[in-house]
């Protein structure tokens, strides 16, 4: 892996994994969540991460976000602070929906009026206009997930200032899992629009293969226990989406059943 420095590309990748491993605990009870993962996200690339439940997708995202540290290998992070949509909504219970969306802006020191406007705009985007003053416990599961999405978007938009010319990065952990098909459609469209407009790189975890194929430029499949990169598909240039979907599904089935065996 010493060769990385020589082959440094002109534009730096937002994130690059070098044989990254992550083990939880020690001794007999330890769990190897990730093992020897090599992964690179190009600037502005939309990468979808697929894998069985419990294979290490969330762990991988946490490593990128700097919320956890690899027990082996090395992560090269070259983006501004990544924005994260967590798997659980994890809203702050003492803040309203709008307050939650404003939180990253507040911490970045954005003035109040601007914050307000931005939060309203983002809530509108996730189809929650007018519900800004609700508390998390007054929202439905899907609504909470959408607030969390809006919050993550708020945290990317603010980071343009301080990050300078570094590429930005958005990490999303099953952000649409609790949404009905129609809302999901709309938000997928919005996400693509934002992606194209901002040129941010996105690392997107999902269980829905069709969603992965629809959204991503590249689909990465992780194996289970330990999580390893098994296969990758370039789905943007694929001529037949349905065929790729089937192919990925088959691969996924193989990965999971090989583990179960």
């Amino acid at each position, binding site marked *: 892996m010493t060769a990385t420095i020589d082959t440094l590309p002109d534009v730096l990748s937002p994130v690059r994994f070098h044989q990254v491993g992550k083990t939880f605990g020690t001794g007999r009870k330890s769990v190897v969540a990730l093992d020897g993962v090599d992964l690179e996200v190009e600037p502005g690339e939309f990468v979808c991460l697929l894998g069985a439940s419990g294979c290490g997708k969330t762990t991988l995202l946490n490593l990128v*976000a*700097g*919320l956890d540290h690899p027990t082996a290998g090395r992560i090269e992070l070259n983006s501004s*602070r*990544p*924005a*994260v949509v*967590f798997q*659980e909504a*994890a809203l*702050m*219970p*003492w*803040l309203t929906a709008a307050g939650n969306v404003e*939180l*990253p802006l*507040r*911490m*970045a020191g954005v003035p109040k009026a601007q914050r307000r406007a931005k939060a309203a705009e983002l809530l509108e985007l996730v189809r929650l206009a007018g519900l800004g003053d609700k*508390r*998390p*416990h*007054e929202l439905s599961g899907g609504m909470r997930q959408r607030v969390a999405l809006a*919050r*993550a978007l708020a*945290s990317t938009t*603010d*980071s343009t200032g301080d990050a300078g010319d570094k590429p930005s990065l958005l990490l999303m952990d099953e952000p649409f899992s609790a949404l009905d098909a129609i809302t999901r459609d709309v938000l997928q469209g919005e996400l693509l629009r934002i992606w194209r407009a901002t040129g941010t790189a996105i690392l997107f975890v999902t269980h829905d293969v069709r969603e992965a194929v629809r959204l991503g430029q590249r689909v990465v499949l992780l194996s289970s226990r330990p999580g390893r990169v098994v296969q990758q598909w370039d789905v943007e240039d694929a001529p037949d989406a349905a065929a790729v979907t089937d192919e990925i599904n088959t691969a996924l089935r193989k990965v999971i059943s090989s583990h179960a065996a």
Partner: protein
Amino acid sequence: MPLDVQEGSVEAGLDALDTPVDTTEGSRVRRIAARVLPPIGAVVVLVAIWQALWAAAFWPEFKLPAPAAVWSQIWQLVTSGDIAELFWVSVHRAVIGFAISLLIAVPLGLAIANLTVVRRGIGPLVSGLQSLPSVAWVPAAILWFGLNDRAIYWVVLLGAVPSIANGLVSGLDQVPPILPRVGKALGAGRFGGIRYILLPAALPGFLGGLKQGWAFSWRSLMAAELIATSPELGEGLGQYLHNGMSLSDISMVFAGIVLIFVVGVGIELLVFRPLENTVLKARGLGPAR
């Protein structure tokens, strides 16, 4: 018979407690009544038991004074206007002492909760301080500061600071770890994480600590007042109780205890209860579950 959930389910009794009281137009009075009547009822019951015990002459008068005798002591304070001074002297001291304690205890608690070295080094000492009775400090405080307010505040600080700091620490320890992680991911630095995530998240536990801290500072103040008596210090509730003790006037002792108690309950009902209700309600944690 079909089980009608709304009316007849087994848990209806329990559930009735869950259901938030509907706040219709005219119910303001009733809501306040529902809040004020039960403690008054409890007090009435207590006094009735007391009166009965007294009437039964179960204990001699010098052990258990008549409620009426205690009441007349208090009434005398009220009519003479002395009660205003008693309250003022004690309450303003307690409030000042509590405020200073807050200023010291919050940074201390944050340091203990966030820095492992401080937690391991200072944490046990702070808890140890908490287990020192205030009375133990009074003589030393008088020796160091003289018979004045500084000595009293010193005793109050030593009582309240460890309690508030510990309350804050235990509040912080119970914050779901996902929240600070989210905060970090949203760009919270060290200070922002404390200001915007940890402190508000720990608020319910911290409020409990504050309540305990208030209790400690009020207790410590009373202990200090009980022991340090001097005309320069003005006469507070503690001194009043002290006089009752030195006169072995049991009805005065009871009057003193009742007054100290009234302030305790009053502050609880007027300050901490509403604060706590607001905080808990805003996060969907009900006080009555």
